[in-house]
């Protein structure tokens, strides 16, 4: 099977790239290892900072692919290679694909919170991740403790798996801060009687309207922010949790009981990204994410002509940035196919 372009990974980046390419009149195939497109975004309820339903974004992107994109789900890449400008991809099912160009959009995985043992994820009943909280939100369920009671106090823990030498991740995952603030607001909205405490090191409200959301969380929703990384957590006989941190703004250790704890898990390179990069001999940074040819001038291309990187394969990125990056990649691919690629 011959195609002009193969996009690997049908998360929001891959979908946007494929849609943009087909709108440019390019023959494109989209390969996805799972049974559905949508990647991480389909597990999310609402998006920061506007709290637009994630479904809207997926529907919009899905429409852009409605005609002209050959979508193959359940087609994890078994092998990939290139020879004389032609890429050959063998999916686990279906016939091999030959393409002139490949867009790698295999994205990221969420940090496995079990690795942060002292937080007790997977051990204590009432420790959940931000992703699990989104699932609760998107299923429209009421947030309760594992024991079925309404939580009276919830702790939101920032930087789980990020900015932490102890788990080997020195980088910042960028989107967790604002996700935490958004989720704090949503908890307060759902359970007005429940106190919410956010434990943070810094609040990196880097993008438009993020700081305003933080302000709203403080002013309108009364979310309390305590500056201090959670050092350890333990379970009480009633299954509530004891948190220990330093309240760095008073310079004193602080102990607090919460009924539930939400871990804001960060980004790690997805195993697919690592595997495919290894097959192609792509280089990655110390953080494990892939390196583009140049951080400023060729940030979608690689050392292999015709192979492009888009979205979170290059490091933590929010949906807006991933989509913009995907569209930029599509333009670069078009230039490449036209033989106009900038040197």
């Amino acid at each position, binding site marked *: 099977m011959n195609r002009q372009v193969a996009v690997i990974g049908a998360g929001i980046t891959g979908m946007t790239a494929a849609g943009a390419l087909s709108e440019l009149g390019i023959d494109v195939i989209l390969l996805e290892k799972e049974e559905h497109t949508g990647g991480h975004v389909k597990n999310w309820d609402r998006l920061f900072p506007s709290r637009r339903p994630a479904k809207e974004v997926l529907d919009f992107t899905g429409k852009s692919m409605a005609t002209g994109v050959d979508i193959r789900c359940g087609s994890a890449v078994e092998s990939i290679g290139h020879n004389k400008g032609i890429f050959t991809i063998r999916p686990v099912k279906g016939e091999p694909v030959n393409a002139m160009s490949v867009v790698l959009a295999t994205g990221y995985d969420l940090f496995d919170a079990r690795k942060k043992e002292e937080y007790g994820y997977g051990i204590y009943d009432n420790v959940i991740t931000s992703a699990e909280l989104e699932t609760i939100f998107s299923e429209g369920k009421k947030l309760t403790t594992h024991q079925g009671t309404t939580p009276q106090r919830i702790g939101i823990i920032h930087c789980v798996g990020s900015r932490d030498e102890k788990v080997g991740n020195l980088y910042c995952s960028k989107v967790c801060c604002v996700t935490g603030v958004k989720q704090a607001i949503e908890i307060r909205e759902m359970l007005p009687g429940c106190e919410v405490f956010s434990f943070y090191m810094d609040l990196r409200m880097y993008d438009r309207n993020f700081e305003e959301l933080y302000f709203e969380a403080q*002013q309108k929703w009364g979310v309390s922010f305590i500056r201090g990384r959670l050092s350890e957590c333990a379970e009480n006989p009633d299954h509530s949790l004891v948190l220990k941190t330093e*309240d760095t703004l*008073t310079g004193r250790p602080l*102990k607090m009981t919460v009924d539930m704890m939400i871990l804001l898990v960060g980004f790690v390179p997805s195993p697919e990204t690592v595997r495919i990069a290894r097959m192609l001999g792509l280089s990655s940074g110390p953080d494990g994410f892939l390196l583009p040819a140049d951080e400023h001038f060729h940030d979608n291309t690689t050392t292999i002509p015709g192979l492009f990187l888009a979205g979170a394969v290059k490091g933590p990125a929010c949906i807006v940035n991933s989509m913009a990056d995907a569209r930029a990649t599509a333009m670069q691919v078009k230039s490449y196919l036209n033989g106009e690629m900038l040197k």
Partner: protein
Amino acid sequence: MAKNFGYKILPGESIDFDRNDKLIARYLVEHEPSINLCIGCGSCTATCSTGHFTDFNIRRMHTFILRGETKHIKKEIQKCMFCGKCQLVCPRGVNLRNVILTINRAIEHLG
């Protein structure tokens, strides 16, 4: 009879949030909700007229109050001269003079 072995059980340094009495904190938040907006930048403390003479730290003090640690605040808060510079530099618009006045009132009414 308590025996004396030459040492005493040291009180913990840690803030026990659950056990602390947060009456004053609640009073403060209710009467001057702008306190919630603090981001701990310390501008108020850096510019403080009283802070030029002592180690008066209004940023830390109201944080302590919100955590229910009020014992040492009661005396300390009396050093404020109310000049209002803190309020003028606060990047978040915290109504600091009223924060301090409210803490004074809370201490007066609630002990």
